[in-house]
């Protein structure tokens, strides 16, 4: 998180406009469960998306979802569906919606909302077991750009 925040700050110095165009977690517009508009002005990078999906300390999607597409990564979970073919089954807008807040698409799902900052019970400070510091703005599990990167990667998962 720290690193991303610094990176964003650096960007905002040089390109304030691009930063302003980012859609905040509370302002994402859902059409049903779809999110049509990109959360940023920078197109998603599928390479980075793959890293986020498979990395334990980032999206950690792999802990619940297996896929042939990243069979080189160990320890695939089986709580969620296999992600191969996600790019055939879903449109970009649907995938953006699913990753941002899967509960809009799948009622009561166990899949966490990756771009959401409110409505939690006993919100903790990451994995410390301590409460989230009062008054501190809550950071979503993934940044806007990371969501775009993940969506770009999922779109490459064709069968």
């Amino acid at each position, binding site marked *: 998180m720290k690193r991303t925040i610094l990176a964003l700050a650096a960007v905002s110095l040089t390109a304030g406009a691009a930063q302003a165009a980012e859609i905040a977690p509370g302002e994402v517009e859902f059409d049903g469960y779809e999110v049509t508009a990109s959360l940023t002005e920078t197109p998603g990078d599928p390479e980075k998306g793959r890293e986020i999906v498979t990395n334990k300390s980032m999206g*950690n999607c792999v802990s619940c979802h297996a896929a042939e597409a990243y069979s080189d990564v160990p320890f*695939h979970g089986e709580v969620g569906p296999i992600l191969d073919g996600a790019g055939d089954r879903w449109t970009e807008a649907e995938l953006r919606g699913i990753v941002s807040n899967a509960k809009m698409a799948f009622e009561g799902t166990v899949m*966490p909302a990756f771009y959401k900052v409110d409505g939690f*019970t006993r919100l903790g400070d990451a994995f410390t077991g*301590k409460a989230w510091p009062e008054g501190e703005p809550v950071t979503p599990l993934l940044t806007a750009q990371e969501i775009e990167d993940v969506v770009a990667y999922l779109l490459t998962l064709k069968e």
Partner: protein
Amino acid sequence: MKTKLLQGIAAVALAASAGTAQAEDVIGFELNGETPIVVETDAPAHLDGALSTIRSGWTFRDPATQAMEMDDFDNPGMLAVEDAMVAWETAEGSEGKSCMDCHGAAEDMAGVKPVYPKYVESAGEVRTLQMQMNDCRENRMGAEPWKYDATEAVSMEALLSSVSRGMPVNVAIDGPGAETWEMGKELYYTRTGQLDLSCANCHEDNYDNLIRADHLSQGQVNGFPTYRLKNTKLNGIHSRFKGCVRDTRAETFSAGSPEFVALEMYVASRGNGLSVEGPSVRN
């Protein structure tokens, strides 16, 4: 579900113990080649069909880990039981008394563990075994209470559990403890943290699935205290709860808190019918 159970050391059908006129065999293993341990049985009625069968965490572990628990010589948790046996006989506190002075041999405590947590009439509250142990220490021995889930407390809990191994968990859910049980149930189904997950999401909806490298069990507590290969020591129930709540990116409750006492009571009751198994071995 059934097929996966057979992956490990096949839990065998144990002949129903002599005397009980049970038609059906039960699934389990023989501890030390003699004590039947039931590791799978019908879910208690109060689960309302949420699970059809209940399974001990033992059935989800690999054969090597299972085997360590099947013989006391191989079970590292039994070392703590030996320590606790010394503590059982050692006088402490201003009254100069040991546990044994009031209770006799540790083996005489067989039958205590299966019904805890329970409503204790004299105290007017639901208590865990550790709370009850500390009541004795403070009020009968004049000794310092043990810290919740600390080594001494967990070891003594393991001793009291070990003498009840093979007896069915039988936690009361009605009567004056019912309110606490309801509170525990509520906590069990409440989603917490930034990952927004409840105990049920992992241990009821997804048991038998892998979550990353972990083979999800039903999160039963009949095997506690558990010796974990991961941290090479005995672990208490509340410490395990803390870890699971923390993993939802939530603020946890503390060991010994009213919330965890209630949760322990509820979770223990989900295992009514499984054998007391502690100290068990888990990864």
